[in-house]
């Protein structure tokens, strides 16, 4: 146990947590990748924390299960930088293979890639080198069969003790290479692809479509999530009318959605709360968000309207009386990220709330986004009718 490599121990508690995180993923390959990934993550997060780096899972804990079935690797946000931990079980540190998704999908690419060799039985993780995205693009060899970038051990910075400094300090060189945009996938094609690739009997579905198409599909958080749900054979998880009627689905809850009953207040305003005898006049869905260091709440509720089926999205500060600061934008988009008329509300000056109302037809789906981007933001597709 020496040399430049860094060995980290994973406690039995950490191993158990990794098992619990991995086992619900179903398919053995996904479970195993998740297990290795979690073990590596446990070690790396502790170690970074000791080195004074606060590392947060990117995009968020809830998104991990929909990454691991397709690609090895877990991204961490460390300040403004992103670090990808590539966990492998091969005991010879002679090459590092990084899935192409983590390199070529612009939204996924990281600043640094860290090689972690996991010894599950021994409960140990060895960190044996890292490299920047830019350098990786220069020296790695692309393997078209596995869609991986291969690096020789000699290409990596083997002194892992340099990594905290690289993450903390402002380096004079760019860490990322420029990337080409992925093609846009029309909604119809995306749905066809999802139906085909979502068949759990099809092994390694990503190998059956060209990378550009696959990358574009999976880069969309909602589609990535949908594919995961289809392969697990889960029933519809994102139907808002179902949430209102029967309660938020497990995956909706995992994303942070909660359902509340509204009741009439004597003063005429409506306040949220558990029913206390009074007749409920409606239902409200809320999701807590952290944006630019403060807590906010995204609310979603049906609105009575002569125009048919109308939903109202509303963003306000979690703290009563706090305004939404200038520069904030709440925007609704179609599932394939196309805009439409009156789809956003923005704050020019401090405002009490931002809201957008939208009339929907049967089968309509939407996605929302906020500027600045909330912490741990992962795009979700909501079925509104």
């Amino acid at each position: 146990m020496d040399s430049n490599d860094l060995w980290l121990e994973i406690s039995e508690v950490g191993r158990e947590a990794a098992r619990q995180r991995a086992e619900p993923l179903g398919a053995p390959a996904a479970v195993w990748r998740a297990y290795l990934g979690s073990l590596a993550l446990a070690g790396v997060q502790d170690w970074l924390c000791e080195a004074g780096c606060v590392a947060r899972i990117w995009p968020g804990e809830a998104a991990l299960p929909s990454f691991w079935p397709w690609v090895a690797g877990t991204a961490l946000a460390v300040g403004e930088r992103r670090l990808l931990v590539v966990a492998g079980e091969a005991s010879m540190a002679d090459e590092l293979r990084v899935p192409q998704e983590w390199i070529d999908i612009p939204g996924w690419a990281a600043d640094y890639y860290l090689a972690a060799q996991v010894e599950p039985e021994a409960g140990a993780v060895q960190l044996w080198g890292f490299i920047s995205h830019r350098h990786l693009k220069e020296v790695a060899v692309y393997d078209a069969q596995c869609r991986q970038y291969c690096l020789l051990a000699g290409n990596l910075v083997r002194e892992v003790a340099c990594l905290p400094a690289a993450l903390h300090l402002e380096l004079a060189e760019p860490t990322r290479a420029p990337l080409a945009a992925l093609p846009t996938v029309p909604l119809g094609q995306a749905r066809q692809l999802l139906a085909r690739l979502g068949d759990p009997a099809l092994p390694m579905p990503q190998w059956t479509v060209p990378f550009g198409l696959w990358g574009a599909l999976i880069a969309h958080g909602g589609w990535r999530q949908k594919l995961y749900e289809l392969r697990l054979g889960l029933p519809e998880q994102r139907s808002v009318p179902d949430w209102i009627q029967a309660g938020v689905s497990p995956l909706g809850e995992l994303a942070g959605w909660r359902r509340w009953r509204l009741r009439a207040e004597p003063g005429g305003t409506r306040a949220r709360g558990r029913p206390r005898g009074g007749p409920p006049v409606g239902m409200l869905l809320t999701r807590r968000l952290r944006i630019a260091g403060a807590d906010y709440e995204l609310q979603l509720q049906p609105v009575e309207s002569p125009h048919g089926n109308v939903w109202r999205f509303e963003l306000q500060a979690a703290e009563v009386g706090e305004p939404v600061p200038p520069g904030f934008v709440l925007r609704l988009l179609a599932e394939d990220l196309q805009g439409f008329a009156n789809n956003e509300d923005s704050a020019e000056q401090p405002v009490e709330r931002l809201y957008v109302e939208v009339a929907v037809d049967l089968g309509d789906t939407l996605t929302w986004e906020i500027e600045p981007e909330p912490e741990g933001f992962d795009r979700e597709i909501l079925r509104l009718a």
Partner: protein
Amino acid sequence: MLSPTKEVSVRSPFPFYRRAEIVELFSTYLSWNMGRPAGWIADAQLQLSIEHSLSRLAQADASRRFWVLYWHRIWQDDQTVGAEARRLAARHLCAYLQEACYRAARRASTRFTSTRFEVFDLFQIGMLKCDRVLRGFQPERGDSLDNYATSVFHSIIGEALRQHQEADISSPWALLRRVTQRFLSASLGQVPYDARTIRCYVLAWICFRELYCPAPRRDSARLADPDSATWQSVCALYHRESIGQGLAAGPPPTPQLIEQWLRQCAVAVRAALVPDVRSLGGAPGDGTALDRLETLPVVQQPSEFERLIAQEQEQEREALHERLNALLGEAIIQVQAQADRDLLQLYYQGGTTQSEIGERFGIRQWTVHRRLKRLKAQLLEQLAPRCAQVLHRPLSLALLEAIGTVLEEWLQAYHGDRCE
């Protein structure tokens, strides 16, 4: 034929004389006696060659760095010089790397937790992979070959020790999960299989690895035999992918065939994991082909410009060292906790293993290892911005890495690495 080797007198007490002259640096090999280094053996052919080169090149006063770059350039050059010259260059560099490899072997022998090999065996393991050092060395980054080689030899030795442990894994399926694609391909190449067969086997292995995974609770080192349904799905995936890869020929493969291929993969990997290191003893350098020296192709001389660049790099490296030494002296004093200072002292003065340190401090070896790494990372982070400032160089990853290397060396020197 002339006697190909001659002993060079050992000029200083044990462990061994440190070579200094250009001729001996590039033409002598470490000789061993009872598993300990006993002195230097000159390879006559190499000696003639380096003397020849010294007299032929005007820069006879050039530094060792010049000659390292010179031979490395020739070794790398597969366009203008012949294979013979490249082999010769490799042997010169091998001779040069003896100390670095010895240092790495010695460190590995005291610091790896369990080892059934002696320093001599570890040294041989390292020297066998000399080409990996040469391949990875990037003189244009200003690295010194000595530092780079020591750290690479150390990883090579560490890997080999781990690999020997791997080979003890009984299940072929578990073994196949523990190899990299690169190692598998190389193992198959050693059998040897032809290129097409290797591609088929590797693809089968990729499909197997994707579809046959251990469960988190099971002991993956004792992975059981896949059932027939697994073989069928591996076979189906292989069939689908082999068409895309242009590897499909004749009737589609059967699950039995795929299983047989993978068993053959495991056999090849096992054979490659345990080369018989102990039989490789003795002094390298075969001493033959002495007469061919005169007919060696004339190797290109580095141009004056390149020589200047090399010198400049050398100066810059030395400047880096000097400045760093001063900065490090200050930084180390700022390591406040006495326990941390003791830890660095114990570890870097050499000879004390991490588990022994752990016993002394009443903490576990893991904790020792981790704390050492943390201290190093701290020092590095403290130093890096000041180094960049002092050296008037932008703070780059390469500079961080260079500081890391110098730091390691410095910590050893500071705490007196007397146990060599």
